[in-house]
């Protein structure tokens, strides 16, 4: 594990790199973080996704915000630096419900769980196995991907959780 502080991946960003780099998505709430890793060449990347699906008239530089465009973009960027699609594994985190509203007629699930579902279904359709997840709940998480090991560190300040998945 390197001691340098991880590079930040903000909302809608998709970043890839090689060991010994590390990436972090700070304070995922209802957003979902998708980490992909190729352990053979120790390359990987992180996407900080905001919504399940891309709507109409979305600019090219907004593609990282949606699960259905961000994950394929992450896979493509990884292939450019030697990450073989067949070797990729995924770890996902986030998708919380930060506020609990008492509504009379909730028509659909909260956006956090919809983001998680969308990420899972895109990964499945690309044939990338999800080997670990830390999703749902009512609290924010910071997700750190260490490319030296493929470990993903999860930190929740409000729940005082710090663990590796």
């Amino acid at each position, binding site marked *: 594990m390197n001691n340098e502080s991880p590079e930040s991946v903000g909302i809608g960003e998709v970043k890839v790199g090689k060991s010994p780099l590390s990436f972090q998505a700070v304070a995922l709430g209802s957003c979902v973080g998708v980490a992909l890793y190729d352990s053979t060449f120790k390359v990987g990347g992180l996407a900080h996704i905001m919504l399940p699906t891309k709507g109409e008239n979305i600019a090219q530089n907004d593609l990282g915000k949606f699960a259905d465009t961000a994950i394929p973009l992450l896979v493509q960027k990884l292939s450019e630096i030697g990450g073989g699609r067949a070797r990729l594994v995924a770890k996902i985190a986030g998708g*919380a419900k*930060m506020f609990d*509203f008492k509504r009379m007629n909730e028509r659909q699930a909260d956006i956090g769980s919809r983001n998680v579902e969308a990420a899972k279904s895109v990964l499945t359709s690309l044939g990338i196995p999800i080997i670990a997840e830390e999703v749902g709940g009512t*609290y924010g998480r910071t997700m750190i991907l260490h490319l030296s090991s493929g470990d993903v560190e999860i930190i929740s300040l409000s729940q005082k959780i710090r663990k590796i998945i």
Partner: protein
Amino acid sequence: MHDFEGDDRLNQMLRDALQELGNIGVAHSATALSQILNRKVDMSVPRVTLVRVEEMYKRISNNPGEVVVGIASETLGDGKMDLLFILDEPSTKTLLSALRAGEIPPLTDLAELDKEILVEVGNIILLHCVSAMNTFTGLRLYPMPPSIAVDMNNAIIQHMINKDGEYKRHMISVEVDIFTETMNIKGVVFMFPDQTELDKLMEQLYGEGWDVI
């Protein structure tokens, strides 16, 4: 949604309308807070800005992981407006110590009672923002009981950005300083009025057909 990056004049008119809305909301909140705190409360002229969603957390702190208090509500009625009031740790502590005796713990260890106090204060601020919108537009919006989260800055803000599953690029930020002779509290209200509310607001200020001038 209006393209905030588009026509400069429209942009300026919308900004003025929102500034006026902010002024009224804040003036009313100050009166209500004076009653709770039992002392004279002044509020600064609110700073109204349109913020890109990626940059919202910076209105609170440059650290997206900083623990803050968020109080969120949304309206029913003639339109749906999303609202979020945020207080950072120093402001929360100042506010709580003005309202109750004893030590104030770190934010992540706040007791239920403290959270209830904060919800009440947040409720007052948000109620007056909605009431200002109603007065201005003639719409009838009813705010839902608010809900509180104490967590990382960016995690709380994400709720506003994507809760309806719709893609938003900008949010309206109303920043205000609340002060008395002995304390200074910085609070930020984020609002996301829908198209109906914005249209009504503009119509009241600029007359019908404002958008085709």
